[in-house]
């Protein structure tokens, strides 16, 4: 359950959009206007295509453990999270069900998921946030905002003690006008952290048929090709 909370938090962060400790950042005394503006912006987003690089920084390892992937969201509740490197895995969700596929030597196999209801709940949370309903965040997190010349930084500190034992904070870096997400960091109490850097972002795109199909999802190459035609 604690794991799921942490995962939920990470997902939420991905949808709402870490900080390099920019000395020019100014902490806002009242974050509400900014959050309202963010909510307004997000409510305008019908669909979202994000390419990312994920770095898992563990104290034990000299170098971060890296992976790459894409995240796709489409209203009202279609979600696709795909890892493309160093392995291939697809997770798909809608308001009713979730599915996961793993690639075995180029052949996709659908998993008989354990605890699908928990994953579906996470997916639902993402969908809610995607619709701009940030209210649910304030129940679980103390949110602070800092702004700089070229970045806006949201810091989410879990209110729940058990959740804090897994994640000390979650930091989201956005473009100053909230038109795009730069990166998300999740910090753990022991000093490990995960950094997700968004390398390509498209809003309000039309995904090709089959993108969110939970039986035979369209290959990511075809989805990417369609995105290439988006301005």
């Amino acid at each position, binding site marked *: 359950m604690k794991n799921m909370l*942490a995962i939920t938090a990470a997902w939420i962060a991905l949808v709402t959009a870490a900080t390099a400790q920019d000395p020019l950042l100014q902490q806002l005394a009242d974050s509400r206007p900014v959050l309202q503006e963010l909510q307004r912006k997000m409510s305008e987003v019908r669909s979202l295509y994000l390419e990312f690089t994920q770095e*898992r920084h563990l104290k034990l390892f000299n170098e971060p453990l890296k992976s790459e992937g894409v995240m796709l969201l489409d209203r009202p509740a279609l979600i696709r999270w795909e890892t493309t490197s160093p392995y291939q*895995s697809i997770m798909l969700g809608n308001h009713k069900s979730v599915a*996961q596929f793993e690639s075995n030597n180029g052949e996709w196999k659908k998993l008989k*998921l354990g605890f699908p209801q928990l994953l579906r709940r996470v997916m639902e949370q993402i969908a809610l946030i995607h619709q701009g309903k940030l209210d649910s965040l304030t129940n679980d997190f103390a949110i602070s905002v800092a702004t700089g010349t070229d970045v806006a930084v949201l810091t989410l500190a879990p209110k729940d003690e058990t959740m804090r034992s897994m994640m000390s904070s979650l930091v989201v870096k956005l473009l100053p006008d909230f038109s795009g997400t730069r990166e998300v960091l999740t910090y753990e109490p022991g000093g490990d952290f995960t950094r997700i850097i968004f390398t390509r972002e498209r809003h309000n795109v039309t995904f090709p048929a089959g993108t969110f199909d939970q039986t035979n999802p369209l290959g990511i190459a075809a989805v990417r090709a369609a995105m290439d035609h988006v301005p």
Partner: protein
Amino acid sequence: MFRDCCLMLLVSVLLAGCSATKQSLQGTVPVPAQPFPPDALVTQRGVLTVRGRQFSVNGYIAKSRTHGLRLIMTENFGAVLADVLVNPEGKVFVMRAKPPFRRAWVERYIAADLKCIFGEATDSDCPVRMVSPTHFIVERRWYKVDLWTVETKPGTQPAEMFDVTKGGKP
């Protein structure tokens, strides 16, 4: 509960080839002595099947000819599920175990599988099949794990990684 136990018993008998002892599975091909470089960081993707339900995990294995083995197992989004160290003498240290994994399971099964695939273990309790140089299948009574090696970075691993006083959380 009784029905579950019967089912598990049936499955275990089938898996064990009607053997009453903890022998390797029929058809199991022993893992070659050194399928990996003696010093390396190996990334594996795994699908764990327990009673028909499947869970995907990631494994990061630091392998050192002088210091032993260390495995960090994570779930899809990076949270650590298990952290285990095996010293050159084969002694197991469970550094971390988080739900759904129990400390005893990590020691009894995960560490044992780790030794079978990456260590020098050659005893009969290694139910590991190497389907290809990058694909291993571990089948024990209660679970099956498909493991795919997705990345191997040869090179000496830091000695601190094999220090039992470091890395684990209270």
